[in-house]
């Protein structure tokens, strides 16, 4: 085989392998790192596995916010006006977190206790902005 033809085959092989590896990388990373959205009603009717990280959203129920005395633990309830789920979270709350306002939390759901353990509470920049999913959940 001529040298330049050989080179061309190397190039094509190299490109092909790189693309295959990237596709593999993308799909394996995607499997573990997507968070499905659940409204409180979804959580009731169709609870996810408790080892899978999900997002739950709705309104923060009025008068449901309880703060632990000496730690950063917080408990509150998320409602979609049909069902509610209790949420526990340890950490700082975003500035726009208020009762009766929309919220999206990321974490794990434990159906037996009907409790959602959040590791992240999403902050939104705009007072009037309601997350798309929350809007839908309230309909």
């Amino acid at each position, binding site marked *: 085989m001529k040298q330049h033809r050989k*080179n061309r085959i190397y190039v094509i092989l190299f*490109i092909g392998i*790189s693309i295959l590896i990237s596709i593999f990388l993308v799909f394996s*990373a995607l499997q573990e790192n*997507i968070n499905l959205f659940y409204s409180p009603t979804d959580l009731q009717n169709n609870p996810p596995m408790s080892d899978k990280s999900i997002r739950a959203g709705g309104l923060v129920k009025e008068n449901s916010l309880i703060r632990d005395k000496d730690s*950063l633990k917080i408990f509150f309830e998320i409602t979609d006006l049909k069902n509610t789920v209790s949420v526990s979270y340890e950490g700082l709350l975003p500035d726009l977190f208020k009762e009766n306002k929309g919220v999206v939390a990321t974490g794990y759901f434990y159906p037996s206790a009907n409790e959602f353990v959040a590791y992240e509470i999403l902050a939104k*920049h705009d007072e009037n902005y309601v997350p*798309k999913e929350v809007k839908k959940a309230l309909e």
Partner: protein
Amino acid sequence: MIPEIGNIFLIFAFSISVLSFLSSTFSYYSNVQIYDLSKNIYLIFFLLLASFFVLEFSFLTDDFSVLYVANNSNPNLPMYYKFSALWGGHEGSLLLFVLIISIWMMVFSLLSSYTKIEDKNLVLSFSHLVLFSLLGFIIFSSNPFERLIPIASMSGTDLNPLLQDFAFTIHPPILYFGYAGLIIPFSLALARCFNVTEAWTTHIRNWTVLSWSFLTLGIALGSWWAYYELGWGGWWFWDPVENSSLVPWLLATALFHSAIVSNSRKIFNNWTILLAILSVIGCFIGMFLVRSGILTSVHSFALDPERGLILLMITLAITLYSFFVFFKSDVSDNNSINYSIVSKEYFLLINNLFLVILAVIILFGTIYPIFYEIFSGGRTISVGAPYFNLVTVPIAFFLAFFQGYGVLTKWSSSPNSIKTFSTTLIVIAFLSLVFSYLLFNYLSLFNVIGILMVSSIIAGVLISAIRIFDNKRFFFNNLGMNLAHIGIAVTIFGIGAVSSHSSSKEVILEIGESTTLSNYEFTLIAEDFKEESNFYSQIAIFQVENLTNGDSFDLKPEKAFYPASRSIMTESAIAITPKEDVYISLSERLNSGEWIAKIQTKPFVRFIWLGSILMCLGGIFSFSRRLLFK
């Protein structure tokens, strides 16, 4: 009356732009001689500039009969922010964007000379295509001069407090200079498909490098702004808005590297054209994602599905048109060149391959939720930051690792010595050892990856710098490139250090109480209060003592309240030390008088932006050297 004048200016600019496009196209197909149409762009520029100042006038005089002003300004806003509020929303920022496009077209027209005037007309006509599409979009569906009659309020709403900030005022214009500049190589590439061959690769490389410099600086400013203004010390969130600026950046980086090959070796020609088209399409997809509200993002604009649809149509139209032109064209490579595995051509091919793969997987992760929602019947998902970290780090590693030796290779016409290769490996190994010894007490896999990347790039730069002893011109010719490559290494170093060596702690403190983090002791010593024209804030004063050397300083983070928009802002306080940032942000004040705060140390975080500045300077140097010393 005055806002209507602004609107008329816009309509004039739109008409002239449409006419310029049509007449160049007509002249190309009919072979009718036409005049130098490139002068039109001066007129368009002045019309858009006038229109810009008309809108500024409405902002500065608090004319709340203009809907856009009413939505984005407030009488109590300081003058400076009233001025920058113009680009705080969708309509105004788009007006700024088209103004910047016209500036690029004007500068290109001034600095480039063509022997045939039709060629220049043709190149500019493709820029006009983009320009008038956006102008039409502004006039018919996003008009900043739209009136609100009767006037709803005399006080306006407000500029989002997050945007009342210095970095914000300059971040969008610089970023827009980056995006808009890519329209020039796009036009050159399309014109090449119409057989405008004069210096096309030189032009593409130079103009891409210049807009890439702005893009780099713009993205870095955005990251810096997010770091101190969002209040929680993150510098990159893999948010859709950030990703949609990173995708064009990666494509533009690939583009000017590919243009170097096309320029010197007359190969990769079609690939260069394709990349130039893709970079602009990348910008448009980004613009669509940010402005249509289709993705939930921390900083998207006020949302309107109709506008999203129109933007999608414009994006599709420009995509289809450019691909049609591209596939109909007949651009060929110099077939007599066969490059070997160890050659500059091959290493630049690797560079392009990895950059484009990076762009594709980032774009894929960004828009995957849209497709998921469509195909799963309405279930929504989000793709988390771990996805992006997992897929980008390995690819970025190979990219940086090959970069070091890649810059030292020669074109395949001259032989590459095994000596260079072995020297590079030795220097990389040496640098890696030095870095490992100096900086890290322990080595995780992540650190090793970072050290190898940085060492490899620096090795390339060092060895190429040593070559000045052989050839002084060689160094000067490559100064821009070397500066930019050092910039990449500095940024990667910052990313590596801050990702693996930051420390952070969330605390509840009452006045007089202290806590320690890393080698600092933090004591909450007092509280304060201040009132400004458009907000007031509570301040907590911390005394921070460096336990290693006994130095101490105060940090005063704030919690600000903006009455006009009834919003609360976290103003972090940052102390910059040579090694690291000490960062405090307040969460809230409990009824008991205690403060909840987050304290952090961020080693070498400044290197991330310092590196970006070096990249930008390298790019600007490279552009101006080529311009001044042709």
